[in-house]
């Protein structure tokens, strides 16, 4: 029966310090998983889609989708720094896409109303003649 001698106290101490240090360092080296950020960014992309950005701001919308997808892939790969970076960009791109879609709609509404107004004035002008 081999003698499995227990570790001496000072050895234990060294190991525990080593482990603690390694955990500490690994914690420092990796970014914590940006779960909340990913969720918020994904929601921003969905909002953009609902605002019609897919049609009204296709370039910005596509960029946002690609980035949030990329962020989720990075999450799976545990590359949290990349995930955070892509998610932040996806969020701001999605917000821009939403803003552009809404401004495009407002532009259309303004044009339509202006046309209506023109037609109305014309009609009334004709009626009173």
């Amino acid at each position, binding site marked *: 029966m081999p003698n499995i001698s227990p570790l001496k106290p000072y050895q234990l101490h060294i190991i525990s310090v080593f482990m603690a240090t390694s955990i500490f360092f690994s914690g420092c080296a990796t970014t914590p998983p940006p779960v909340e950020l990913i969720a918020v960014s994904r929601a921003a992309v969905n909002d953009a889609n609902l605002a019609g950005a897919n049609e009204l701001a296709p370039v910005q919308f596509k960029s946002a989708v690609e980035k949030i997808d990329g962020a989720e892939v990075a999450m799976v790969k545990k590359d949290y720094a990349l995930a955070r970076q892509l998610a932040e*960009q996806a969020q701001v791109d999605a917000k821009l896409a939403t803003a552009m879609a809404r401004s495009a709609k407002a532009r259309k509404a303004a044009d339509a109303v202006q046309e209506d107004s023109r037609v109305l*004035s014309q009609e009334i002008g004709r009626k009173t003649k």
Partner: protein
Amino acid sequence: MKKPYIIIAPLVIALLSGCATHPINQSLAEAHNSYNTARTNPQITSLASLELKDASDTLSKADAAFDKGESLATVNQLSYIAYQQVRIAQETAFRKTDEQSVANASAKRDQVRLAARTAEADSAKHEVAIIQETANIQAAELAAASANAEHDQQIISKQEKQLKELNAKQTKRGLVITIGDVLFSSSKAELKSGGIHNVRKLSTFLDEYPKYRVLIEGYTDNTGNDDSNQTLSEQRADAVKTALIDSGIASDRILTRGYGKEFPVARNNNSSNRQQNRRVEIVLSDENGNISVR
């Protein structure tokens, strides 16, 4: 030897100030440019101030990160976000401007509609006024017509009364006034005063209604020879005519005929009937002077 210091000092200052300003980072510079452009646009500062503040905050973080010498990735990331936030501010300003113009346009449209409705209402009011005026005129005309009718009615009834006084009788030939034999001197063509009185009444009537004309016809009974009867009938008719002319009636309004014993009104079988046949009949024309001669 103080001169070298004088030369070196500006160099040192230049070097230090060069260090103090940010060394060139492409994306950070772009974000600053973009932000500075937006900040001078009053449309953006007034309509998208919150969005612009977001961009400004992010830009400050980017500057801070750059100053602290943080990684290029971090600076670039913050610069990119700031740049996009400026664009969001721009789009927001565009949107609000258009939304305002929509709101203004619909207000303007309401105004145009209101003006049109007012014009329509005025026009309708004007039409109503015209209709009212027309109705008033018609009512006035109706009243005038009614007054005229009343007036006419008065004239007619007056005329009727006058004709009645003349003892005019309605016959197929029109109104006929008979002056009997008793009003003439016996077998002569002279009117007695009673006959003259009748003729005066007639002349008053003719005076009043200048369009009327008269046909004076003399008749006799069947006694005596036809020639003398014919002559007497003509002379008696002429006598009446003369009396009318004497009363001021124009001769061209008076026709005379003598018919002798023709057209008796009674059988000549006794003196009373014969007296009836000895007569002068005055036929009144219609109101336009038309008269039917036998």
